């Protein structure tokens, strides 16, 4: 008797007991899920309430009158520091930071991972170990020298400076992920390609890149969410002119003087969260793969 048939014999238990346990598990999971949703729920309902209703203090109640006024104000008029142009500026900055960061970090890491995985580079092993160490270095220890470098390159306080720093910081982890993906490509394919053309770049563009769809989506999503959600790099290297949306939001909700408009704060926070949330809910499976790969060295 094999183990699987043993399991089939052993597992049919009285049906009633199983149902009870299943319901208990589902109820418990449902309650935890409700707790997880509390902050999001509170943000959504508060952002649609007028301030009059907020002052009554019922944090969980639905808006009596649903109004988009707070959203409009957060986008066009809310003050962040000395300027009162809403979150628009930060949104466009984030977008302008995102695109070059994605292109630079993904192409750099993909090519590096490809070269290390499939070409005979003698020092590949020690370089990979070095990258593994770099992936865990705290940002603070390299922060000041990188500030000096970006100032010298006249990139400090610009979109390009922020994008450059994102590229540098992401390079070790992304390279390790790409390398781990490429090293499993069968050697025969590479050998055939080498016989055919033998060119490093042609093999990358014509053979490897078309095979990378899966890993590219995972990394794209990992990078979009982490760059969009970044605060530290943006606040350090963005200066005044290139602040991403998160920095804009933080200024808006912490430094606002006078009466605090909670509905505007919530609307502003949700506006900042919408792009990564949409990506997460649409492409969640890839997101999970990405964080798992990014966390455990790929």
């Amino acid at each position, binding site marked *: 008797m094999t183990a699987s048939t043993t399991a089939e014999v052993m597992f049919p238990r009285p049906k009633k007991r199983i149902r009870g346990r299943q319901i208990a598990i589902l109820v418990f999971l449902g309650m935890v899920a409700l707790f*997880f949703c509390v902050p999001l729920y509170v943000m959504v309902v508060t952002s649609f309430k007028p301030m009059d209703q907020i002052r009554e203090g019922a944090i969980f109640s639905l808006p009596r009158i649903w109004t988009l006024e707070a959203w409009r104000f957060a986008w066009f008029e809310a003050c962040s520091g000395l300027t009162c142009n809403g979150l628009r500026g930060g949104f466009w900055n984030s977008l302008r930071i995102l695109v070059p960061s994605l292109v630079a970090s993904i192409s750099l890491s993909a090519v590096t991972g490809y070269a290390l995985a499939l070409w005979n580079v003698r020092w590949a092993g020690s370089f990979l170990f070095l990258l593994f160490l770099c992936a865990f270095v705290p940002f603070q220890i390299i922060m000041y020298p990188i500030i000096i470098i970006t100032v010298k390159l006249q990139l400090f306080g610009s979109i390009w400076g922020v994008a450059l720093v994102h590229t540098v910081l992401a390079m070790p982890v992304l390279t390790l992920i790409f390398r781990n993906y490429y090293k499993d490509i069968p050697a025969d394919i590479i050998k055939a390609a080498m016989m055919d053309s033998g060119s490093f770049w042609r093999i990358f563009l014509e053979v490897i890149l078309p095979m990378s769809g899966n890993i590219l989506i995972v990394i794209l999503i990992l990078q979009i969410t982490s760059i969009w959600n970044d605060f530290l790099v943006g606040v350090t290297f963005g200066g005044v002119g290139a602040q991403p949306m998160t920095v804009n939001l933080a200024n808006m909700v912490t430094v606002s003087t006078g009466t605090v408009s909670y509905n505007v704060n919530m609307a502003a926070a949700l506006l900042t969260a919408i792009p990564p949330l949409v990506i997460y809910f649409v492409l969640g499976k890839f997101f999970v793969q990405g964080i798992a790969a990014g966390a455990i060295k790929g």
Partner: protein
Amino acid sequence: MRWSRISPQIALAPAVTVTAVGFIGSILWTIYVSFTRSRRVPEYGIDFTNPLRQYRRLFDDTGWNIALSNLIILAIGSAVAIVIGFLLAALLERERRGEDFFRTVFLYPLAVSLIVTGVAWRWIFNPSLGLQSFLEGLGITGVNINWLADGRTAMYAIILASVWQSSGFYMALMLAGLKGINTEIWSAARIDGASLWRVYLEIIIPMMRFTFLTCAILLSLGVIKAYDIIVAMTNGGPGQSTWLPAYFTITAMSAKGNLGFASAAAVMMLLITLVVFLPLVLLTVLQQRVAARGGVA
């Protein structure tokens, strides 16, 4: 054939430059500066009569000592996230119905910036309009959850937000670990008549020790890097009560005239990271050995 040797080296040049300048060079520079008297701008002369001055200043600093003890408090408190993560993963693994739905809910905090969710948490902790007033409206008085206003309780609020944010992540790692366990073990345990609890405590959890260790190390690394959550929830306050090393170092760096001092703090952060990181390297080696022996990792 010559090009096949040179092209890869050329392609690797940017990555090597980034590693050499951005990481290794920058780390060495910061370590060096931490031994100098640098104040507003870097100074490159080391005063050999007292090269450790910045480190002495650092350990005499109240803020740094608060930051260190908060680091330990946050690490212990956040460990709850690993327990919750395992619990959720075990339940989801037993009851597969709705797995996708629950996983989506438990993981969404990770997709959003802590700067965003911090706004929500501060609002929930708001004493006159938040959860407190909701409870009072229900007639529950005498519960004080105005945690953010009091230096003695502010860390609890940060721990709560951090557990909420990261539990889903550990759940995902645990779920992957649980799915790797051979189902035959379940039937074998059933034949022995072992209860569910005992199977988990005595078989499953020991088998997943590597997953747990990985989670613990990732959690420690995350705690060392924790910065956004402080900015979003307390900005270090009240007073200095919620300072953490990452926050301390950035604050010292942006304050003028503190470059050497801030560098010393950054070097200490690197050392703490190394202490946590070393077991990870050992773990990887161990895991490979166990895998080579044919055991279950």
